[in-house]
């Protein structure tokens, strides 16, 4: 009887060991929930393609360890995001969740991932909610914190000498963060602030208010199709030449420039990354992306690529362990030991970036393409405003 029991225990031990060795060879599952449809579908497409480029560079691995990347479209709807993240976590065994574009989806997806003990790395949406008091040890914002994009735009507007501004954003968390960020750094007067609907297509009413308010400049946060619609209508209303725009990168990316054409020329905007950045990592990324997909990468692609590279650096450090060695993986992420395509990069105590913001201006190049040209440093080593509220060390 005793022998039998020992035998059973030994068998159990061996089978556990067997499972463990099998697990170490199995790929790490990364769940990517992103926005691939609606007018903002190209945002998620950029993140996905940038991320997958990094995976392809290593032949299906990150940091030397095989990964299995699952990609699903949330359609910019929080309900979809919740369903997908639950499936990824419970059925697919995802250990890392990433990809969320919009800040109406992330407040649903991030807590679900964190509660399940998974790591949450955001390549885009980083609402103030998770940067301050509610920061979490497994939550990492790789791209930026929402507000900072607009803090930089506010600083840039000061630099350009504007004394008052009309500001506008969709009525959701990222929109509020955006306008709060702009106001935090802009020294001039806010003529009016307007909240529109998320996904709104016609901006006639808002354009009429801008005309009536006669501000020196306009700052808006309308990413994706919203920005394209607004800019086309703004130009058609004859305002593009009268009241200049000072924007953040989200409102003036490659696709928006391509779609609105000449009326984008001369628009000033701020960004943490640009196509023309002259560092080795970026040159390799831009060339690789162009070769793999036959088009120039957007900011979103750069953010997706950076996220994958960060994961790769951490996987390399822990020998391919994520949930099996959460402390090690976390410390490795925090070290940010990778070459970001944006240049200098470090995590603040709240695990949001410290990086530079640059000014850009839209120009038409010799081939008739619209490009953002980097024209100078706007805000060096920019930190978000919430890090002090975060208890993480």
């Amino acid at each position, binding site marked *: 009887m005793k022998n039998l029991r020992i035998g059973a225990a030994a068998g159990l031990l061996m089978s556990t060991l067997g499972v463990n060795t099998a697990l170490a060879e199995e790929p790490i599952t990364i769940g990517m929930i992103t926005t*691939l*449809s*609606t*007018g903002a*579908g*190209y945002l998620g*497409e950029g993140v996905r393609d940038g991320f997958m480029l990094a995976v392809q560079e290593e032949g299906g691995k990150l940091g030397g360890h095989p990964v299995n990347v699952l990609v699903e*479209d949330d359609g910019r709807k929080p309900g979809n995001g919740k369903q997908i993240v639950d499936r990824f976590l419970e059925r697919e065994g995802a250990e890392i969740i990433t990809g969320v574009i919009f800040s109406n989806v992330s407040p649903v997806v991030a807590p679900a991932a964190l509660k399940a003990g998974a790591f949450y790395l955001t390549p885009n949406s980083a609402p103030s909610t998770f940067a301050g008091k509610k920061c979490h040890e497994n939550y990492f914002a790789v791209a930026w914190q929402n507000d900072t994009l607009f803090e930089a735009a506010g600083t840039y507007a000061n630099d350009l000498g504007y004394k008052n501004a009309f500001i506008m954003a969709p*009525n959701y968390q990222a929109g*509020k963060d955006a306008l709060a960020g702009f106001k935090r750094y802009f020294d001039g007067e*806010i003529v*009016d*602030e*307007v*909240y*529109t*609907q998320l*996904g709104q*297509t*016609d901006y*006639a*009413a*808002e354009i*009429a*208010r801008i*005309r*009536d308010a006669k501000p020196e400049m306009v700052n808006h946060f309308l990413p994706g*199709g919203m920005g*394209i*619609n607004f800019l*086309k*209508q703004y130009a*058609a*209303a*004859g*305002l593009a030449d009268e009241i200049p725009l000072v924007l953040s990168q989200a409102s003036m990316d490659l696709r928006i420039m391509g*779609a609105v054409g000449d009326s984008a020329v001369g628009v000033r905007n701020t960004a943490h990354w640009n196509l023309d950045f002259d560092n080795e990592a970026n040159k390799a990324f831009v060339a690789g992306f162009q070769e793999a997909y036959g088009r120039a990468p957007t900011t979103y692609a750069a953010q997706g690529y950076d996220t994958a590279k960060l994961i790769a650096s951490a996987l390399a450090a822990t020998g391919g362990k994520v949930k099996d060695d959460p402390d090690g993986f976390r410390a490795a992420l925090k070290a940010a030991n990778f070459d970001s395509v944006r240049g200098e990069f470090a995590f603040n105590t709240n695990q949001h970036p410290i990086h530079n913001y640059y000014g850009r201006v839209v120009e038409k190049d010799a081939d008739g393409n619209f490009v953002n040209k980097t024209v100078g440093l706007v805000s060096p080593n920019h930190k978000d405003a919430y890090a002090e509220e975060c208890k993480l060390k």
Partner: protein
Amino acid sequence: MLLLIEQTLGGLQLGVFLFLVATGLTLIFGIMGVINLAHGSLYMVGAFAAAFGTQATGSFFWGLLFAVAAAAIAGLLLEVLIIRRLYERNHLDQVLATFGVILFTNELVTIVFGRQPLFADMPAALAGSVEIVPGLQYPVYRLVIILTGIIAAGILYYVISRTRAGMLIRAGATNREMVAALGVDISLMFTLLFAFGAAFAGLAGAMTAPLVSVEVGMGEHLLILTFVVIVIGGIGSVKGAFIGALLVGLTDSLGRAFLPDLMKLFLPPAEASTVAGGLSSMFIYLLMAFVLIFKPSGLFPVQSGGH
């Protein structure tokens, strides 16, 4: 003052645009007794066909014609293949079946055109803006939309009140069994009417294509607004749809324009913007509720004995 003029024009434009879509819906619902949730899909078909046709031919005019034809044919097929089987069924079956059509159409358009939105270029001749009163530049294209809508309304008015076809439509709305008993091919009439409504939705889709991004699912949000319009106007009434559409357009536009300023009288600016943003998006529903309190069948109820 300039702001008021510009916002009123904006409201008119939204109004006539809603009218184009609502006409088909109200006729189909009022006369055939079918709730057609897929009407927004016909609008989407029009927008996609216009964007595609404009890109293929290089001319917005041909794109527009192509869009109207495509939407009419889509409507024709929809009626013959699906809607025809629903006339005798209850509303729940109709809602289920036409909701299925929405999902099907969205998926089909995704397969054909992909998930990325299309952008139709505005015809160069209409791209600029004109000074309609001193100090107010208004986009020519938006004026053209208003004009198109008014012309379409005029044509509809003429057809319905002055022609034999219109007489049959009016008779059908009141008592379709009687019309059938008098020897009119009611089945053919329904098919043509459906295609006619679809063509108007397609026209609306085509007209809007240069203004906004043409994307899958663009019809659904509009459909809700359109139902608000026909409920306010009275189901089955084209006149009601016209008045209802203008009311909804103006309420939405003026609400979005002036509510924030109104709110600032009571609240600090940041909160005022947030509250006004939320409130103005539900303003039209408040309007609908208000109208229904006094006129439960809408502003211009149709006396219907057919169903």
